[in-house]
């Protein structure tokens, strides 16, 4: 019975998340306003979006063993292509979003087919280089298209009325939730498919997959493209949530943030990247608020300076996780259980030191 219930807890959580906009539950400490207020919904929606983005990124890192340093490029492509399709071609939101995702798929297919020709750290470097090129391109504002440092805001006249205005934050929240659910479904479905099993094989030992007579290249390209498409769709949701495209989305810091999220939560696990993405985004926003608060301003400089830098705290936290929690937060319960089991088991079986 309990095992049966355990299977269904994600659905229960989904229902709770779905109902959140109807609730006025105050969550002191975690959120500024009550649960259903626009400010809180906006923050939770961003958390869910990054949970989905991290899950999609982990399709490469944790499932296929590909360390890409250029994932932000695909996120930014979805973001900018959708925005530009509305601004420059005057498309409606839905065709523009489809155009944005199609652009992302095409770019991921093209650049993936090039960068996957090198393996190991060379692959990481090529993806970083391509993403850097994209970031520079966005910053230089070719033909006045990207708006350079300023970025460009989404045109309100091309967006459906239900997605505009603070009173419609709940709709945006549901879109972010839907994006997360779709991403989780796509990742879980592909990972448990035959292709997903070959990804796992590539992650463990690529040479062995080749010996079996399979070419890893094609399978890696599929992973790269699916992961890129998910990032592009995330860019569309991000455009709705923040109402514009800014060059920060394309920077190498954005990829590093995804990497931090995945590792924080636990790479290669079912819920880890989601958890990491939600926690990181929440912490980044709340730490920013904390930095501006009065209680921090009154501290002596030795404490105030580091505490007022969210990135310093997140970077330090990340090092601590890598160091103290290998496998991330998702592996924590198993480690705690394992630790306790080991403590009770050792005296009984009397395993000699180093035998394991």
């Amino acid at each position, binding site marked *: 019975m309990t095992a049966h219930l355990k299977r269904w807890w994600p659905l229960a959580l989904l229902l709770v998340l779905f109902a959140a906009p109807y609730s006025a539950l105050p969550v002191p400490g975690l959120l500024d306003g009550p649960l259903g207020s626009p400010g809180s919904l906006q923050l939770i929606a961003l958390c869910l979006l990054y949970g989905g983005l991290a899950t999609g990124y982990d399709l490469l890192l944790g499932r296929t063993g590909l*360390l890409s340093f250029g994932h932000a490029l695909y996120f930014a492509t979805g973001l900018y292509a959708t925005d530009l399709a509305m601004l420059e071609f005057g498309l409606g939101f839905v065709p523009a979003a489809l155009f944005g995702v199609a652009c992302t798929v095409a770019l991921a297919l093209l650049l993936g087919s*090039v*960068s996957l*020709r*090198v393996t*190991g*750290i*060379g692959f*990481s*470097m*090529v993806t*970083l*280089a*391509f993403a*850097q*090129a994209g970031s*520079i*391109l966005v*910053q*230089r504002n070719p033909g006045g298209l990207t708006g350079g440092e300023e970025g460009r805001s989404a045109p309100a006249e091309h967006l459906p009325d239900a997605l505009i205005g603070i009173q419609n934050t709940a709709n945006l929240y549901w879109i972010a939730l839907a994006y997360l659910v779709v991403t989780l479904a796509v990742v879980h479905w592909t990972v448990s498919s035959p292709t997903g099993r070959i990804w796992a094989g590539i992650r463990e030992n690529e040479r062995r997959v080749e010996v079996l007579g399979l070419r890893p290249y094609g399978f890696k390209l599929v992973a790269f493209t699916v992961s890129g498409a998910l990032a592009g769709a995330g860019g569309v949701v991000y455009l709705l949530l923040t109402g514009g495209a800014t060059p920060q989305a394309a920077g*190498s*810091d954005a990829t*590093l943030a995804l*990497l*931090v999220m995945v*590792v924080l939560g636990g790479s290669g696990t079912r819920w880890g990247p989601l958890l990491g993405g939600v926690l990181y985004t929440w912490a980044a926003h709340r730490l920013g608020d904390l930095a501006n608060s009065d209680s921090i301003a009154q501290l002596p400089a030795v404490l105030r*300076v*580091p505490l*007022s*830098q*969210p*990135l*310093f705290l*997140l*970077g*330090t*936290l*990340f*090092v601590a996780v*890598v*160091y103290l929690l*290998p496998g991330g937060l998702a592996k924590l319960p198993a480690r705690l259980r394992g630790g306790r089991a080991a403590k009770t088991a050792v005296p009984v079986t009397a395993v000699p030191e180093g035998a394991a």
Partner: protein
Amino acid sequence: MNTVVLLACTGLGLGALYFLVASGLSLIFGLMDVLNFAHGALLSIGAYAAWWAATDGGMGFWLAVPFGTLVGTAASVLLELALIRPLYARPRDQILATVGVGLALPALLMGIWGSDARPFPQPAALAGTVDLLGATVPVNRFVLMAAALVVLVLLRLFLARTRYGLIVRAGVEDRAMVTALGIDVRKAFTLVFAIGGAAASLGGALAGLYFGSVNPSQGTGLLIFAFVVVVMGGMGSVTGAAVASVGVGLVQQFANYYTAAGLGDLSVVVLLAVLLLVKPRGLTGRLA
């Protein structure tokens, strides 16, 4: 002609800067498979330490640069001993730890000195220009080239003539074999980290000279091009890094001038992609 000479000198100066960052990066990667994302932060530490010494510290420029280099070297040794060494058996976690440090350190610098660029004091002897083949070239370009040449020569002497250099070279070729021979590669690694940190922080102090100011994100910006240089030159090869630095610096400057600004940065990236596709192991044919 004047423009070509000026562009060449500026490109070589920039290449020298890339080499200072990339040489340590390349050796660290070659020896331990650690892609050091904190290397840019070490450069920033060197830059800020030198800037602080030259302004608030009241030291002259010629004392401030060694001071910055020393602080950066100390920071890199500390980083290696405290964070990298305990993760000795987990190379990917070593990379991730440096990612965390690379995020945290520039943020800390920003917290202390703000995100605005701070003007770097130029000593009178280096503020001027030199006439070379009709072009007016700022003196600091030559300072950078000279520094990079000195570091290159010293590194090559260290690698070719000393016992530790031998261990480092052997470790880059085959770490497992060196360890099996009973040599502690970890000591060599700390040494390489210190050398890399010294070169990077010297680069940081001189980057202040080149750009005229220091800011917290300078290190990270240079790090990306240093990565490009390391991959193009072949991982673990100092000479490869030197050749690639010169190439990247020159291509960037010329393309930025003769085409639209910013295309130079792009062309460097395209150059890397093309090179890796033609020769996946980089210029020197070392394993990438």
